[in-house]
């Protein structure tokens, strides 16, 4: 087994608010390997963005990373970092692409300058050298006529072009890890496809590891090697992209996969997960999904399920995988996916 370049162990993050303490991340573990794409899927409030912001020390002032949480980048534990230490990490080791390209660019600085800045800061390049490199990088991310546009300001560009600039800035200091937080959610599908292709090509070229955060399962299917599904501050299932899409085990993953229509879903057959996610001011005692889960067992309401190993690469936190649990029949959409799994991935004999 490879050694991971990043390992998160027992991460817990809470936010102090006027209403009380919100337990946003309630024990998250995952590993990230060189060159791979790990997709973190979940809805708003599930903790996917907080998780990645914690990896860069970008949480708001009212956030606390609980003692004992570990974010291991090589031999250093980023969970212990003070503000002054982060300069060595941000942009240089781990860089980030945000959702909204307008608010993540500086409107008063030319795009060329914004791309050159991390090179000067982290790679020690001289201004002229950095400008040359910025130009090359603009071409790399598919910005046409880069020479003419290097001195443009962000407002002169369209959303898709701006997002290319944001990617170029993130790549500028040659990070080992790129975090992309909903990088295409604000874009049209045709532009989204272009941006995803650029990200994939650059990742391959630079052998970067990518953490890709999204709620769009179509995008996950496109980019991910492995997937972690988050719900209410915890990872509930993780596995290879094929394991998650064709052989999912957690009822929340089932719900997500069945509540997205494909272009062949017949009217009236769309499955909806009932209810809404729990309030993390008062995290539930048992499985956080239990109240919305048609397959919930009695124990789900009382005790949090541990991870059950499905394969060496696949685990899910649901009591349904316990030996004593009754056999259940998953939703129709999932049965179809499992049939595909049986046919294409399970070897005969």
């Amino acid at each position: 087994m490879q050694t991971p370049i990043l390992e998160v162990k027992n991460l817990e993050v809470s936010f102090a608010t006027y209403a009380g303490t919100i337990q946003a991340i309630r024990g998250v573990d995952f590993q990230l390997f060189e060159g791979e794409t790990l997709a973190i899927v979940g809805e708003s409030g599930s903790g996917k963005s907080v998780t990645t912001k914690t990896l860069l020390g970008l949480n708001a002032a009212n956030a606390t990373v609980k003692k004992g949480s570990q974010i291991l980048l090589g031999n250093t534990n980023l969970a212990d970092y003070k503000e002054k230490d982060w300069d060595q990490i941000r942009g240089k080791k781990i860089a980030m692409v945000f959702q909204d390209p307008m608010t993540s660019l500086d409107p008063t600085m030319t795009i060329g300058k914004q791309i050159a800045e991390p090179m000067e800061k982290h790679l020690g390049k001289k201004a002229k050298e950095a400008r040359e490199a910025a130009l090359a990088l603009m071409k790399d991310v598919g910005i046409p006529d880069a020479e003419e546009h290097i001195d443009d300001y962000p407002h002169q560009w369209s959303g898709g072009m701006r997002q290319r600039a944001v990617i170029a800035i993130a790549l500028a200091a040659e990070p080992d890890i790129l975090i992309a937080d909903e990088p295409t959610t604000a874009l049209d599908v045709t532009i989204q496809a272009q941006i995803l292709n650029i990200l994939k090509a650059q990742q391959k070229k630079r052998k970067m590891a990518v953490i890709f955060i999204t709620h769009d399962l179509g995008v996950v299917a496109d980019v991910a090697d492995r997937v972690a599904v988050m719900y209410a501050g915890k990872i509930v299932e993780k596995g290879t992209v094929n394991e998650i899409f064709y052989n999912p085990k957690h009822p929340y993953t089932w719900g997500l996969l069945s509540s997205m229509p494909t272009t062949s879903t017949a009217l009236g057959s769309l499955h909806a997960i009932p209810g809404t996610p729990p309030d993390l001011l008062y995290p539930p005692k048992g499985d956080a999904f239990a109240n919305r889960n048609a397959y919930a067992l009695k124990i789900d309401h009382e005790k949090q399920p541990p991870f059950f190993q499905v394969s060496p690469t696949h685990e899910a936190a649901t009591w349904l995988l316990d030996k004593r649990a009754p056999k259940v029949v998953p939703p129709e959409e999932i049965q179809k996916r499992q049939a595909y799994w049986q046919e294409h991935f399970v070897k005969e004999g």
Partner: protein
Amino acid sequence: MENPEAKKLVSIKNLTLTFNAGKKNEKTALEDVSFDIYEGETFGLVGESGSGKTTLGRTVLKLYSPAGGSIEFDGSDINKMKKKELADFRSKAQMIFQDPQASLNGRLTVSNILGEGLDEAGFTKNKEERRKKVLELLHMVGLNEDHASRYPHEFSGGQKQRIGIARALAVQPKFVIADEPISALDVSVQAQVVNLLAKLQKEQKLTYLFIAHDLAMVKYLSDRIGVLHWGKLVELGTADQVYNHPLHPYTKSLLSAVPVPDPVKEKAHHVKSYDPSFEKDGQERHMVEMEAGHFVLATQEEAAKYKADQN
């Protein structure tokens, strides 16, 4: 909806809309758009941002005045309506907005948000009746009595959108425009709202104009679909015709860009690129009917080529 006896509820003919007409920054947002919406159907409108889909929806509700063409609702031109007729149209045609937070008045209780429309339409003779009607509306969208006295900020996104739907339906409309009604909602809640829209349509025989950029959702809900690009309708047909047998290269490109939640398929698949430059070559293009109910914007030669490409 190929049934020839189906009644046209909305009929849009040669609609053109220009912003800043006569000024330097003049912009044609809609150009020569024609289509009908039949009673009881869901007409889906897709296109990228800037294609004019929201503008079209607003024009159909008479929120913008067109530069040319006509929009008929139930047989009368909405831009020629007089006071009383117009008031009637305003209650017959309603809108559900994208952002339920921004479209609900934060200073009113839910009961007053819904009651306002009821009062305006003259459905409430006294307080008791108003209360009863508000409760009916809440039940209809899956909320209950307890919610009536609360303010919008006390609700989750999905619940707010339910209130937005209840408000639109308060005045008993026949026609509802839903402009991106689910794109601000969480994935697990989107399906709830879509199922609610489908249920209400069946119960109340509503006609929908459903505008969205989520192409899979549009396909799921719609009977017929129109594809807008640069203010022009480039393709029109049943959901099956447009999605499974697209003709226009723009439609093909748009559909190929939708990522599907199936890793084996998605990873093997390539997006078709689209070069729109030919649209500006000055040639006249018309909606050509390629098969019953399936239209594409093309010259005669292009139409022949599209047909050949399909076989």
